[in-house]
Each structure stands twice: as structure tokens, then as C-alpha cells.
């Protein structure tokens, strides 16, 4: 719904502002957005895939704990990681001060250019590719790799020629989510003062008070997301892998110095993306904990928990219904199209989607008033119902991908045999499909929960009175430049997120 509201803005005028944007911002923005997407896309694909391959196919020192530890960065909100990195690595951060004073190197501005922000995005978002690629590698038939080995292919050749092509759909799915998140991001780009397409949306709305042009720009963003999804489908191709066999044998053992080198590589990714930022957040938190902590936190924590869990439950319920294997879905292109549309919300910046939703409600109110009813706006704005609806629209992609992946593993033979035995459609779903999909559904629920916990703009605009979350507290303090105090609620979020990610890992290992 928000997407249709946003797209309908093309019916409204916006001429002059477009000329101004075209003259000043647009060409730069298209370029900088493209560069960022390419950099982040390449980075997460390479890093996520290599890490996943190493932990699945190779035995090396520390592999056991690094395998789950690499999930953890997902628990850190991107904007939190960004302000920690700025605090540590920018000109006035410890690292550069040390480099200038001890090594006598010149200082530099990490916010200039592309590389620092690209790296930040890569370190926040690689877990998407990592978790999908890892699951896919685990399902790869060991004998194919053994065959490759026997034919004398080097590990690198096996990686390129066998494992990666087989895992391509999974990598593409992770990449897709990453690119959509990057497009929609506002927190990281504003901290680095990097301009993307989203910047223009906010400028149209915030600076020029033109909600029409903002919506027109936002619909272009949705168009880009639509193309991304299309390419992802193409990359996936027609291939279907019905394999559910999982092997726990690792074909390669890296011992001696190679093993330690691999450990060092994987460990430094973990350090940089999780351990170091957490350490910094803990240090800041300790300094100000007494000043920042108060009874209000009970409220922040409970509203975060309630919103997170109920949104997750609701989103996966809808996603499951959409993902259930069914013959009418396979035959109807329209239906498939609609399902793809429902997952596009992920690419909309949260604030745009929230305002789009408000206008959607307004339209319903107008219709209702036309038929003699009264406006519903004041009842729906600031109601849990609308907020949950926003979460469902925004995070459907995550829940759907996860549920759909497990639905695609269900071999058609189950349906055939169930039908042969005379089972009703309902019984088939309830007794066969749902139990088989449950792990995928639950995994989706946990990921959605973490995302909802981190979500800021829609929560900020649509929450009911008194429903401040930890993310809102982090934002309000960091917006005032009080990063040390913001570290306290940020730490709580990370702990909560890490618990969810560990639950995810446990679930994941039980099915893989």
C-alpha cells in the first residue's frame, strides 16, 4: 500500500524543484549511489562468500566458534557502527592520533571519498550473504567436491567451478537484501555526510517541503529495487535444488601456518565488525552509565521487546501464507508479481514509507467520509496496529525469502503422495508443509525481530504515546552529539540482538 501511495505522486506537479535538482544534485547523486552500490555489492559478495566457504569446507583453528560469531555483527544497528567507526578512525579518533604522534604519518579525512563508507556498509551487511551462502554450502553434495578433488582440481578451482556456481542463488539473495538496505539507509550516510538518492528524497521533503517530489523520487528508488529483484530472479535461473542432505564432513583441512593465516583473516573480520565496536560501546557505557540509567529504561526495553516480537510473529505469519507451495501460485504470473511487490517495502527509506502509510490512511479516511463516516486518522496514527502494519510491509522481504527458501526445498513428491493418500489441501498444509517449513519460518522470524529492533524512522513517527524504544533513545542522544550516552541503550540493543542471533544460530545448526 505505501508503495502505491508513493507512486501515485507522479500525478502531482513538482516542476521547478526538478529543474533545480537536475542542475545541482542529480548527476552527482546517481554517480555516488551507483559507486556505493557496486562497492558494497562486490564487497559483501566476496567477503560473505569466502567466509562462508571457509567455515563450511575448511577445518582451521578457531573455526568452531568463529562460525557462529560471524553472525553477531547483524545485531549492531548500522548507524551505531558508523558512529563508533567515526569515533575511532576519523581524524580525531585514537587510531589517527596514534598514527600521527607515534608514526608521524599525516592525518586524513575518512569521510572524504568512497572507501570508508563502503567498508562500513560491507562490515554491517556481510552477514546477510554469509548466512545465506553458508546454508547453501552446507547442502552441497560432498561427493561432487570429492570428485573435483580426485580429478586433481585445486581447492580454489573447486571453490570457483563447483561451490560458487551451486551457491549462486543464495549469494544473490543475500546480495539483494544488502543492496536494498544500502539504498534505503539514511543513518550511515548522514553520519558520513555522503549523498545518495535517499539524500535527495529527504532534501525535497525536509528542505523544500515538497512531499510530491519526495514521493516521486522515492518511487524511482522502488523501481531500482524492482530491477534488482528481477536480476536476482534471473541469477537464480530455473534451477531448483531439492537437496536436503547435509554433510558435516569438511573436505579440506588447513593445518600449520596456512591454518593460522586463515584464522587470522576470519578473526580480524570478526574483530573489526563486532568485537572492536562492542568494546568501544562498553567503554563509553561504563563512563556514563550512572548518569544515563534510570527507571525509564524499563519502559524502553519492554516496548522494544513487545514491538519486536509481535511484529516478527505477524510478519512471518503473512510471509508463510505467501510462501506456501501451491499450484495456483506457480501458474499465475500475476500472483507471483503481487508477491514480489509486497517485498519491495524493504528498499523504501523508513521515513518515506511511514509518511506514505499516513497518506494511505488519509485516503481511506476520505473514502470513509465520502460514505458518511468520520476520519480514521486520529484512531490509526499512533496506534500499534498501524505501526505493526508498517513493520510487516517493510520487513516482508526478509521473512518471505526465508520461508520461501524452505518451501522450495519441499519436493513435489510430498504433495503427490499426500494427494494419493486422499489428504485434503488443508491437511497437506498443516501436517506436511508447515512442519517442514517451520525452521525456515522461525529463522525468518528471528531476522525480522532483529531488524524491527534496529528500525528507527517508522517507529519514531508512528509509535503510540509512551512507546519509546531503545533505538529511539539511541537516536535522540546521538542526534545531540551525545554518543557516549547513546552507547548505553546501544549496548542493550546489541545484547538483545545477539541473544536473538544466537537463537538463530542454534536453530540454523539444528536444521543444517
Amino acid at each position, binding site marked *: 500500500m505505501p508503495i502505491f501511495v508513493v507512486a501515485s505522486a507522479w500525478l502531482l506537479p513538482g516542476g521547478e524543484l526538478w529543474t533545480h535538482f537536475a542542475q545541482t544534485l542529480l548527476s552527482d547523486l546517481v554517480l555516488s549511489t551507483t559507486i556505493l552500490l557496486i562497492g558494497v555489492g562486490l564487497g559483501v559478495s566476496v567477503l560473505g562468500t569466502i567466509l562462508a566457504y571457509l567455515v563450511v569446507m575448511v577445518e582451521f583453528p578457531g573455526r568452531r566458534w568463529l562460525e557462529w560469531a560471524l553472525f553477531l555483527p547483524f545485531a549492531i544497528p548500522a548507524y551505531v557502527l558508523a558512529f563508533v567507526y567515526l569515533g575511532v578512525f576519523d581524524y580525531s579518533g585514537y587510531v589517527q592520533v596514534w598514527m600521527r604522534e607515534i608514526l608521524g604519518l599525516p592525518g586524513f579525512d575518512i569521510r572524504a571519498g568512497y572507501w570508508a563508507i563502503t567498508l562500513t556498509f560491507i562490515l554491517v551487511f556481510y552477514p546477510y550473504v554469509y548466512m545465506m551462502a553458508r546454508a547453501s554450502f552446507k547442502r552441497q553434495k560432498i561427493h561432487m567436491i570429492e570428485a573435483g578433488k580426485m580429478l586433481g582440481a585445486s581447492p580454489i578451482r573447486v571453490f570457483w567451478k563447483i561451490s560458487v556456481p551451486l551457491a549462486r542463488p543464495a549469494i544473490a539473495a543475500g546480495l539483494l537484501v544488502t543492496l536494498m538496505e544500502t539504498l534505503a539507509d539514511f543513518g550511515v550516510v548522514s553520519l558520513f555526510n555522503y549523498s545518495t538518492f535517499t539524500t535527495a528524497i529527504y532534501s525535497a521533503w525536509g528542505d523544500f517541503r515538497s512531499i510530491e517530489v519526495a514521493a516521486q523520487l522515492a518511487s524511482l528508488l522502488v523501481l531500482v529495487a524492482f530491477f534488482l529483484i528481477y536480476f536476482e530472479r534471473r541469477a537464480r535461473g530455473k534451477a531448483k535444488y531439492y537437496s536436503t542432505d547435509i554433510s558435516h564432513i569438511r573436505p579440506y583441512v588447513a593445518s600449520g601456518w596456512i591454518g593460522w593465516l586463515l584464522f587470522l583473516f576470519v578473526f580480524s573480520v570478526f574483530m573489526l565488525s563486532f568485537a572492536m565496536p562492542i568494546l568501544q560501546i562498553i567503554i563509553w557505557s561504563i563512563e556514563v552509565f550512572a548518569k544515563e540509567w534510570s527507571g525509564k529504561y524499563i519502559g524502553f526495553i519492554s516496548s522494544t521487546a513487545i514491538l519486536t516480537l509481535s511484529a516478527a510473529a505477524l510478519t512471518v505469519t503473512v510471509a508463510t501464507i505467501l510462501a506456501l507451495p501451491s499450484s495456483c501460485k506457480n501458474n499465475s504470473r500475476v500472483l507471483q508479481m503481487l508477491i514480489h511487490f509486497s517485498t519491495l517495502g524493504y528498499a523504501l527509506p523508513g521515513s518515506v514509507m511511514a509518511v506514505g502509510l499516513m497518506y494511505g490512511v488519509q485516503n481511506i479516511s476520505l473514502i470513509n467520509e465520502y460514505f458518511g463516516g468520520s476520519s480514521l486518522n486520529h484512531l490509526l496514527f499512533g496506534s*500499534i496496529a498501524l505501526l505493526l502494519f508498517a513493520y510487516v510491509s517493510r520487513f516482508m522481504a526478509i521473512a518471505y525469502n526465508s520461508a520461501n527458501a524452505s518451501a522450495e526445498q519441499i519436493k513435489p513428491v510430498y504433495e503427490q503422495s499426500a494427494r494419493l493418500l486422499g489428504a485434503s489441501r488443508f491437511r497437506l498444509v498443516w501436517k506436511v508443509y508447515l512442519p517442514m517449513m517451520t525452521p525456515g519460518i522461525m529463522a525468518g522470524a528471528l531476522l525480522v525481530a532483529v531488524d524491527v529492533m534496529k528500525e528507527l524512522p517508522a517507529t519514531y513517527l508512528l509509535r503510540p504515546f509512551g512507546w519509546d524504544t531503545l533505538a529511539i533513545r539511541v537516536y535522540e542522544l546521538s542526534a545531540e552529539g551525545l554518543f557516549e550516552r547513546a552507547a548505553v541503550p546501544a549496548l542493550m540493543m546489541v545484547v538483545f540482538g545477539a541473544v536473538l542471533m544466537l537463537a538463530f544460530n542454534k536453530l540454523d545448526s539444528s536444521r543444517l
Partner: protein
Amino acid sequence: MFSRQLTVSAMALTTLLMGSITQIQAATDDTVTVYSSRKEHLIQPLFEQFTKDTGIEVNYLTGKGGDLIERLKLEGENTPADMFMTVDAGDLWYAGTQDIFQDVITNTIVGNIPTYLRDPDGLWTGLSVRARTLVYSTERVNSSELSTYADLADSKWKGKLCLRTSKKIYTKSLVASIIHNEGEDKAEKIVSGWVSNLAATPNAKDSHVMNAILAGQCDVGLVNTYYFGRLIEKTPDAPLKLFWANQDTTGVHVNVSGAGVTKHASNSDGAVQLLEWLSSAKAQAIYGALNKEYPANQNIASDEVVSSWGSFKKDNMNLALVGILQADAVALMQRVGYK
């Protein structure tokens, strides 16, 4: 197992929905409901004191200024909000143009707050004053080298200037005031001079600007004084000082945080009472102590720390003009490539 989980979540949802409806109903009668883009930790102590003094409860919702204005517009006459509070004259002016305020500026407020900090049509009033001025390194800059905002465009500051992003509303208001005082052409030259003097990409926060000066990345910058106040509170020995800009000409650019009573307030009386109380000496002192801002009430002295930075001449152009010129300011900054 799945069905049980479904039932539990359905039950949880129902409870939540009921909860949120009761909450809306609870906020009636005596309570004053405020939408605020001033952050929770800066308003909550004020409201607490107001409730202690008057017995009137305050219910509030924080959010971004633009978002809340949209929400107020769409809620129309059914809005639960009695007051809208925000932190920039431009936002206040824009809210004024969107027909969401009523004219409620009473004699008490007129007595407390000077004219230039209020809307000419009486729709809103400033409640605290923030000055945006020069900050410099006492190690590398002599105060005699500093004079005006325009002087920062001089090539002697090449590679020595740090600025906050043009996306921040305080920057927009400052540039709007320069357009008003110097005219658009001259303003464009000044801002493009700033851009060519930058030592680094404009920073996201005023606190980052000051950190950059302390680290030696640049020598001079522009900040709101209360950010300086917070820094000095934490590190009193920091080699950093404020310089009052444009003292021989137009004076330091000031901005306000302020509020107005909504057009469709269900508790106008309570909201007016709150607005009057916020302009009173007692509340104004809390503003100063909490956030090191200047009082909008001309009858009371600044907070002790704040007055230690010295007194200065303020630019008293009417702040509604800042709002009117803000879009021009943004267009100008985008033309000269101020990010």
C-alpha cells in the same frame, strides 16, 4: 507447536491493540498533549516541574519536526496534540504556514519574550535562544584574526575551516540570515568561499566540528554555543574558545526553540498555561541549566556557565524571515556544492 505459537501471538496482539486504544482515551481532560521535536531528555524535566507547580499532567510524543507537522496536518481537528514544540525558527514558521496553530500569544508571553523571537501573527513563540557563532583553537588562532561569518570565506582560512553539514537545519537558518543581511549574490560568494576553505568534508555534528579543531584538522568552525558548553563541561581545559561574530555589524545569528498551541487543541487552556509557564523565569532557568542555552525571556539572566562566555550583540532580524528564506538558502548551498 506452530498453532500454539500463532494463538499466543494473536493474543498478544489483541492485548496490545486494546492497550493502545485505552491509552488514547486516557489522554483527555486535564492532560496537555505535546508533539515535540525537542528531544525527550531535554523536555521531560521541564514538564515534570510544570506538573509539580500546577497539577496538570503533560503527555508528550517526540519526533522529527517535519514528520510531526505532517502528522498534525493529517490528524486535522481530531489531533490529540494541544501543543507543537520544535527547535528551529524555520520549522516554526513552516508549521505556522500549514494552518496548525492558533493565535494564543497572551500578554504574559508578550511581557516575557521580545518581539523578534515571536511570530508576527502570534502563532508561535521562541522559548530558548541558541547563538550560532565562531569557535576557534586558542593554540593556533589569535582572536584578533577573527571578525565575521563572511570573513571565514577569506583565503587566509584555506584548509583551516570546519563546518557542519548543510543538511542540518541550523546551517540553513544561518545562511538564510546571511541572505537577509547581505543579499543573495554576496551570500552565495560567502558560502562558496567557505566551501573552498574547508579542511574536511562537512561534519554531521557540531561536536565533530569541535573534535576536529581539537585534533588539529582545522583551526576554526561554526557551532551552536550549547554544544561548546557541553564540551567545556566535560573537558574544562580544552584549548577552544567562542568568538562572537559580526559584533560591529549585524550581530550573532540566533535561532530559537519554541512552541505554539495547535488550532484544534482539545485543551487550549492547559496548553496556553503551559506555554506561559515555559516563558516564565523559573522555566527559563531550567532551560539554561539543562542545555546551556540563552533564555528567551529578556527579564532573567543567563545560566552562570553561559554568562561566563561574555555578552554579545544579537542579530535581531525577525525569525519568521529565517523561515521564509530557508528554501533559498538550501538552493544556494546546493548550487555552490556545500554538502
